[in-house]
């Protein structure tokens, strides 16, 4: 049973591990969470004359972050509630309570960007990816029968292509932290997030499509289908060139 399904059903999974082992097993979640907490919550709280309530809220966020892995295995619903809702809730409350000191804390843009990435890794850490040594067919709740075999295996190139696409999609997210003006910064972050989602979505389709060559239509059809956006692209480049010349 995956942790997610365990969470959904609210059942207990296995015996309770020691706190140290629970933290070690959840290192991929706790470490990015700690980094995100230090860079985006603790530093603005400590370095400025923040309210006591903000400091208490930041401390509560840290407690929720540490406690969550201890319950993640034995009581997954409680663990997830602490790690996701309580931690993020106290983080948001801290930022709200900080108010002006948070805005005045320009800090290092790269530190803030890395904090954002750490929050992303923390969110991914609470996903329900299967462990490498775990075999789904060994699960006692699996539907009995002949295991279904994949129709085809993706080429070895696919993970590398997808990794490059994901890395390139994250570049605007980092660049958004260079925007200084508050209004432009908000717009830049929204645009960066949207572009990252769009690029990763399209990139995943492109990367996975490499392994499905048979299902693809003829080359001419593919080129014809892309004719409209490519023509608009050429028009946009032409207008841009014209604007450069006129200016």
């Amino acid at each position: 049973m995956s942790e997610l399904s365990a969470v959904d059903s609210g059942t207990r999974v296995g015996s309770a591990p020691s706190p140290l082992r629970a933290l070690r097993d959840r290192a991929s979640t706790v470490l990015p969470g700690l980094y995100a907490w230090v860079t985006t919550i603790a530093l603005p709280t400590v370095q400025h004359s923040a309210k006591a309530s903000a400091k208490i809220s930041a401390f509560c966020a840290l407690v929720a972050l540490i406690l969550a892995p201890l319950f993640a295995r034995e009581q997954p619903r409680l663990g997830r509630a602490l790690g996701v809702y309580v931690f993020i809730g106290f983080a948001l409350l801290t930022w709200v309570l900080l108010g002006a000191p948070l805005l005045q804390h320009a800090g290092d843009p790269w530190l803030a960007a890395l904090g954002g990435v750490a929050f992303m890794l923390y969110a991914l850490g609470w996903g329900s990816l299967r462990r490498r040594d775990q075999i789904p067919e060994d699960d006692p709740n699996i539907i009995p029968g002949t295991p279904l075999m994949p129709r085809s295996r993706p080429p070895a190139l696919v993970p590398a292509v997808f990794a490059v696409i994901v890395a390139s999609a994250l570049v605007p997210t980092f660049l958004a932290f260079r925007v200084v003006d508050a209004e432009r910064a908000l717009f830049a972050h929204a645009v960066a997030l949207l572009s990252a989602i769009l690029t990763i979505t399209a990139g995943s389709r492109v990367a996975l499509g490499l392994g499905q060559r048979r299902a693809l239509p003829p080359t001419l059809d593919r080129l014809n289908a892309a004719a409209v956006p490519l023509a608009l692209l050429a028009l946009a480049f032409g207008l841009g060139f014209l604007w450069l010349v006129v200016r």
Partner: protein
Amino acid sequence: MSKVIDALSILLVLAAALSFSFGVGALAERRDLIALYWLVIGGLVLRASVELLRPRSSSR
């Protein structure tokens, strides 16, 4: 030829990410019109890459 189209679609996705990066970079330099231009370019490039891979007419 199919491999060339596949490679082109990958390059277009990377070009879209680059265009979005230029757009956000232009926002940092307070050049809003340039930023908008690059963001539109990025959207068009991304659309072209998806169409190259899986044309809409053949979708089920």
